[in-house]
């Protein structure tokens, strides 16, 4: 039977002669493995490979298992819990903890890793302290995590190294062979660079964090500050007493070396033996590798299917929000400690997950399982493999939602949107000035020199349906001393148009000898009414208080108008001049709105006209006429042409006033404005036509303007 090589990446079997996996194209042999000893053994998976360096195998053969007083897997945690307790950790000789002893050159990288991890831990602590840099939902976890407060970043001193890392260093003499040192140094350098990148950049790829996590988890285990005082009998004994568990594992299945009693191996390291760990959990103890789920893989799949960045997956569960100091008890592991433990115990017959069966075969990490080889790291840097494995904690639904939201926000931030700068539009000032000059010259000339020109009469072919005719007939039917109400509801700016439109109509009213009451819903209306009477109707010598009365300003808009319609005497008791309005002759016979014979509204605003129609008019209200600006005519027509008519007649614009004057055969202001008005309209139409055509052609030639213009809905 042809030997097969199991791919470390995907677990597929490959022929022996293949260099790369047929399934995932990962390299089947390490790039740095230059010697046959370094090759991954093609042995059955339940048989641990012989990966011990040749020179160490002899030593390992004679090594006794560490003298562990307590087989409880959680016993090492007691050391963590009580730093001051010298306890029974006679495992480490004092020489190992000697800080003065220079570190071996080949193992110096571990210190650097520690430095990096220490720095990152310091940075994390700083970030935690400045919690305002994060939203509250993020800081809440760190603040409510007592374990993180107790956690101290590891120092750079060698004695702070965790024991399992110290054991792997120079004290064991695990120096590579001289002929391989260069390659291995390069390998270590490559690995260190990866670690360095991970520490600095917080690479979100979970796989790339695998190694630093492992190192970090080891570094986080605080070693006892008082180093054990053990008198070494001999160097061999010393080595035997401190030899790491992986070395003991080597002894369990050496191809040609005697067996090691695996029962002497601590339970938490028995995974290295490839056997099921002894399940000697007491009632108080908690399996440190139980992360809360029945099926680890399912749990991890659930975690990673959201593709959360690894830095976010370190967020702890909300359930762990409790005081760690109170929660920690012998055998009762807090969740954060569980998180640091390798999760390989209950995963398979060999004690390793199928995709974690790679065991380091050289260097200080030799014999440690679940270490991603450097070349595998390179291969696995493909984006598709980024979420295959990682050590994470469970994340609640709320946290996941927050994480998604944050990712979305960050993603949007990274997407730059090109916002066009506002372009100052060419305003064609020349055209503006040209229009102004043309209007001034033309209209001024017409006013000054056009007095002798005879006005053209309007075409009266369609007069019977016109609003001004209906209004004329309505006013003609009024009798002397009948009270009428006139609303001056226009802006002073529109005086030019509306006074010319209304002068002949008011003149007609006064000629009929009616009493006039004036009101306005505009603050400037009363002054406008006085001005109108005193300038356009001065020939009639109407006296205020006797022939007409100014009721002043009616505040409140439509609401005020409605109130006035309901109770006019209560709403406006006094006239503009302070007299009692309702005792004056114009209003002597008026107690309600229906007592007026006619309501005439002068306005430039179609909405104001609409309000008067809606709020005042009922079935019993008097006739309503209107004098409006030309801009309001299209909307006013609707009230005139409906059946029954809501307004009885109207005059619109200067043209309507001119028509009214022509009808009443009483030339007034509109007649004097005939020539300038017509010339102005011709000029405006000409400018718009010429300018519009020129601009249209320019637009067609040059294209539409960019920037703020031309983007509106059309």
């Amino acid at each position, binding site marked *: 039977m042809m030997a097969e090589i199991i791919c470390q990446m995907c677990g597929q079997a490959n022929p022996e002669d293949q260099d790369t996996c047929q399934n995932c194209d990962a390299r089947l042999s390490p790039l740095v493995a230059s010697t046959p000893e370094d090759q991954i053994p093609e042995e059955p998976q339940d048989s641990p490979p012989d990966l011990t360096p040749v020179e160490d195998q002899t030593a390992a053969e004679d090594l006794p298992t560490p003298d562990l007083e307590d087989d409880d897997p959680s016993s090492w945690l007691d050391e963590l819990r009580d730093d001051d307790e010298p306890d029974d950790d006679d495992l480490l000789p004092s020489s190992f903890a000697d800080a003065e002893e220079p570190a071996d050159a080949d193992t110096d990288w571990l210190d650097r890793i520690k430095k990096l991890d220490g720095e990152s831990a310091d940075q994390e602590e700083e970030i935690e302290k400045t919690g305002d840099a994060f939203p509250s939902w993020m800081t809440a976890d760190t603040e409510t995590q007592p374990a993180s407060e107790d956690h101290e970043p590891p120092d750079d001193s060698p004695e702070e190294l965790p024991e399992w890392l110290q054991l792997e260093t120079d004290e064991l003499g695990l120096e590579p062979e001289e002929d391989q040192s260069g390659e291995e140094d390069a390998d270590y350098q490559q690995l260190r660079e990866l670690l360095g990148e991970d520490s600095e950049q917080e690479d979100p790829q979970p796989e790339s964090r695998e190694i630093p996590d492992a190192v970090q988890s080891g570094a986080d285990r605080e070693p006892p500050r008082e180093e054990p005082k053990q008198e070494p009998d001999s160097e061999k004994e010393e080595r035997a007493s401190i030899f790491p568990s992986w070395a003991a594992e080597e002894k369990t299945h050496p191809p040609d070396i005697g067996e090691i009693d695996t029962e002497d191996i601590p339970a938490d390291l028995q995974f290295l033996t490839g056997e099921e760990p002894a399940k000697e959990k007491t009632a108080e103890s908690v399996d440190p590798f139980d992360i809360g789920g029945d099926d680890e893989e399912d749990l991890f799949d659930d975690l990673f299917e959201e593709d959360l960045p690894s830095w976010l997956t370190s967020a702890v569960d909300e359930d762990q929000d409790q005081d760690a100091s109170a929660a920690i008890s012998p055998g009762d592991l807090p969740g954060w400690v569980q998180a640091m433990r390798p999760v390989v115990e209950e995963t398979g017959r060999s004690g390793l997950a199928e995709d974690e069966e790679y065991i380091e075969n050289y260097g200080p990490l030799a014999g440690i399982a679940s270490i991603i080889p450097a070349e595998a790291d390179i291969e696995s840097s493909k984006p598709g493999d980024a979420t295959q494995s990682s050590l994470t904690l469970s994340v609640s639904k709320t946290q996941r939602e927050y994480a998604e939201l944050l990712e979305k926000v960050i993603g949007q931030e990274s997407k730059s949107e090109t*916002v066009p700068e*506002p372009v100052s*539009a060419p305003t064609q000032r020349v055209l503006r000035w040209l229009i102004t000059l043309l209007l001034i010259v033309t209209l001024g000339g017409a006013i000054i020199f056009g007095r002798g020109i005879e006005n053209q009469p309007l075409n009266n072919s369609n007069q019977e349906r016109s609003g001004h005719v209906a209004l004329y007939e309505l006013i003609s039917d009024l009798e002397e001393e009948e009270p009428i109400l006139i609303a001056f509801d226009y802006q002073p700016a529109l005086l030019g148009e509306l006074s010319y439109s209304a002068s002949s109509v008011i003149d007609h009213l006064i000629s009929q000898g009616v009493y006039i009451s004036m009101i306005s819903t505009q*603050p400037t209306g009363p002054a406008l009414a006085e001005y109108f009477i005193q300038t356009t109707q001065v020939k009639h010598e109407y006296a205020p208080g006797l022939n007409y009365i100014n009721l002043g300003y009616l505040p409140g*808009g439509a609401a*005020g108008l409605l109130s006035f319609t309901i109770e006019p005497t209560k709403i406006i008791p006094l006239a503009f001049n302070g007299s009692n309005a309702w005792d004056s002759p114009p209003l002597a016979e008026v107690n309600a709105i229906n007592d007026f014979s006619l309501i005439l509204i002068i306005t430039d605003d179609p909405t104001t006209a609409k309000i008067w129609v809606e709020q005042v008019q009922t079935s019993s209200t008097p006739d309503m006429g209107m004098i409006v600006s030309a801009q309001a005519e299209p*909307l006013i027509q609707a009230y005139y042409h409906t059946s*029954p008519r809501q307004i009885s007649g109207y005059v619109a614009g200067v043209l309507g006033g001119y028509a009214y004057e022509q009808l009443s055969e009483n030339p007034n202001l509109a007649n004097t404005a005939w020539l300038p008005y017509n010339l102005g309209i011709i000029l405006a139409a000409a400018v718009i036509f010429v300018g519009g055509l020129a601009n249209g052609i320019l637009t067609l030639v040059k294209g539409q303007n960019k920037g703020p213009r031309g*983007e509106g*809905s059309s």
Partner: protein
Amino acid sequence: MTLTGFSGIVIILLFLGAMIAFYLTKRGSETFQLREINSYRRLSREIRRAVESGTQLHVSLGWGGITSSESASAFAGLSILKQIIKESSICDYPPVSSTGNAVVSILAQDTIQSTSQAISINDQKSYSTGELIALTPYSYAAGTLTSIRNPNISANVLSGWYGPEVIWLTSAAERQGTPIIAGTAQLPSQAVMYASATDPLIGEELFVGGAYLGGGKIHEASVNTQDIFRWVIIAVILLGAVLSLLGVAYPFQSLLGGAP
């Protein structure tokens, strides 16, 4: 109660019921289907740009009051102002608002303060400023020009009641090179805005600002209700026209004629 009064109150109650029904039925859904309105899309973009570039938005509320038919425009403008304050809360400079009506200026101040407090802007210096510029239309337009010509203003929003004098504001914005999103319920002014504003809001588009600027589901429900009622009115008008052509008297005739 008159027939017109009865039909009016029925229509209003139906409108309210439809709004609530739309809200309740689509509360859990992602979002309502709303047609695209370029002006609001532009407004959202301008808000983002103001945030990025540290500039301000100018919100003009017009000179209409709240006691007439201008009130709807004023309230729509206040609703848009509220959403803009919310959206631009992280802006270095808060939006400025101006109005030409005393009551609306008070409401604008209140809207600014309550919205700023609701989104936890504690620094009162970061509040938007609501200014009463003047009390007549033309003086308001003249006074608002200084706000539009402020070099730190990157966009203008006109949402309220205006007359033809709004051409001043749109022309000033054009000279400044800043976009102007303009809407009013005053029809002659809509024509002016269409001719001069970069992004005019036509017809009832002014009243849906809350829905398009993230005001919430109830705003979107009200937009859907408006659409439903519009179709109903179209159907009634068509039916009335056909019946009139056929010479058949129909029950809505007196209502449409405005008779009591």
